[in-house]
């Protein structure tokens, strides 16, 4: 299938891109193109203008400062997988990226594109949820910062106005490096997740969970943090019994039906994968003897 006609623009700065977004009617940003171009080829999307930001090298940097990792929106998924900063400071992202498409699509696909497309099964959105990442957005009136909790407004709908451009995603690091896990179930390797669960956990010297984050992709219409399950876990002993009980709560999360699987199936996967993720994160957090 072939895309419908459109005009092509290749700005050389963020300001120019934002200017084009403000001036042109029915314009879309082209980042890595691994979701937008298929949708255009199938004519699900027929923008009048494409604004290609692949030339904006200023948006492709990974930086480490002030207890946070900043990632430019145009950073390729392949570059994230090869980054020493990501491997050291955000290892859960490295684990999640293994599940994102295939190496050929990761050579083009970007973190900003993934967060703005906001597929409910997007692994990188789950990682952003785990860290309460902040998305910097440039618009005609300057920039604003959106915490990930306020980023999804609904199914595949980020808090991004038509004239705005996401420029950077900031991941505030935890004071103590957490144990991490990212587990996913899909029919075939590289397919969209039916359900994926990411987990971060800190276990104190007495073996109790002092901090935990759980994010679920694929189950509901948007990526969800399981705040209730997290609250139930804090202060509890990091052991298999605790995780089994908490996972039952995870299995009660809201989930969607679609042509492939039922909501009940997704809820069951949310329970099973949460239990696995908690166990793996706890082992990495040093609670090995008790799991």
């Amino acid at each position: 299938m072939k895309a419908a006609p459109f005009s092509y623009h290749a700005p050389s700065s963020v300001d120019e891109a934002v200017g084009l977004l403000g001036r042109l009617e029915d314009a879309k940003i082209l980042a890595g193109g691994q979701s937008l171009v298929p949708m255009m080829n199938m004519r699900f999307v027929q923008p009048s203008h494409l604004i290609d930001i692949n030339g904006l090298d200023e948006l492709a940097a990974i930086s480490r400062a002030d207890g946070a990792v900043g990632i430019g929106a145009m950073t390729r998924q392949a570059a994230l997988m090869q980054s020493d900063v990501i491997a050291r400071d955000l290892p859960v992202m490295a684990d999640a990226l293994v599940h994102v498409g295939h190496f050929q699509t990761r050579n083009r696909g970007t973190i900003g594109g993934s967060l703005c497309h906001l597929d409910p099964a997007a692994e990188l959105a789950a990682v952003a949820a785990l860290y309460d990442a902040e998305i910097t957005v440039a618009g005609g009136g300057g920039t604003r910062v959106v915490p990930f909790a306020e980023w999804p407004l609904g199914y595949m709908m980020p808090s991004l106005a038509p004239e705005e451009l996401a420029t950077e995603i900031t991941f505030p690091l935890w004071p103590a490096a957490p144990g991490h896990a990212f587990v996913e179930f899909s029919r075939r390797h590289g397919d969209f997740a039916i359900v994926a669960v990411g987990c971060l956990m800190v276990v104190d010297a007495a073996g109790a969970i002092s901090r935990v984050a759980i994010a679920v992709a694929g189950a509901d219409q948007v990526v969800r943090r399981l705040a209730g399950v997290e609250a139930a876990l804090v202060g509890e002993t990091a052991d298999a019994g605790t995780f089994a009980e908490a996972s039952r709560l995870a299995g009660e999360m809201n989930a969607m039906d679609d042509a492939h699987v039922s909501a009940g199936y997704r809820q069951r996967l949310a329970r099973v994968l949460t239990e696995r993720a908690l166990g793996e994160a706890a082992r990495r957090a040093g609670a090995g003897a008790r799991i």
Partner: protein
Amino acid sequence: MSEKHIITLTVNGVTHTAEAEPRMHLGDFLRLELALTGTHLGCEHGVCGACTVLVGGEAVRSCLMLAVQADGARVTTIEGIAAADGSLHPLQAAFHAHHGLQCGFCTPGMIMSLAAYLRDHPGAGEAELRDALSGNICRCTGYQAIIESGLAAARAMGGKAD
């Protein structure tokens, strides 16, 4: 709207300047404008991998990249991997020797994907090759022979596969 752009790119070492409508993806540009029909287009939404080419040395779906985005780029297609004297690339030779193709439709994408992967992972074994080719679909279901071909090529290319 949709005015044509003039682009210049290097394909298999040859520099071409041509017009491209913005909506024309790189795969169609290679086939229709440059008559390089070795690159095959299957699904045209990034799933089948048949259209894989190298852009700047990296394997990408040519159906998911616009031709205008390849302005100034260095592109390698299946037509460009044999040696100048016509002798086959180790992957081509291995696919021939190990019957790594049946109908041949997916083969250019398989070989271009493996060419990039084995360059970056010269010691890759069977599990790694299966992972690397998980985004390349063969509807003859000939994966076993494809993997055997890839492993043989890895050995021929000096890796320590197996």
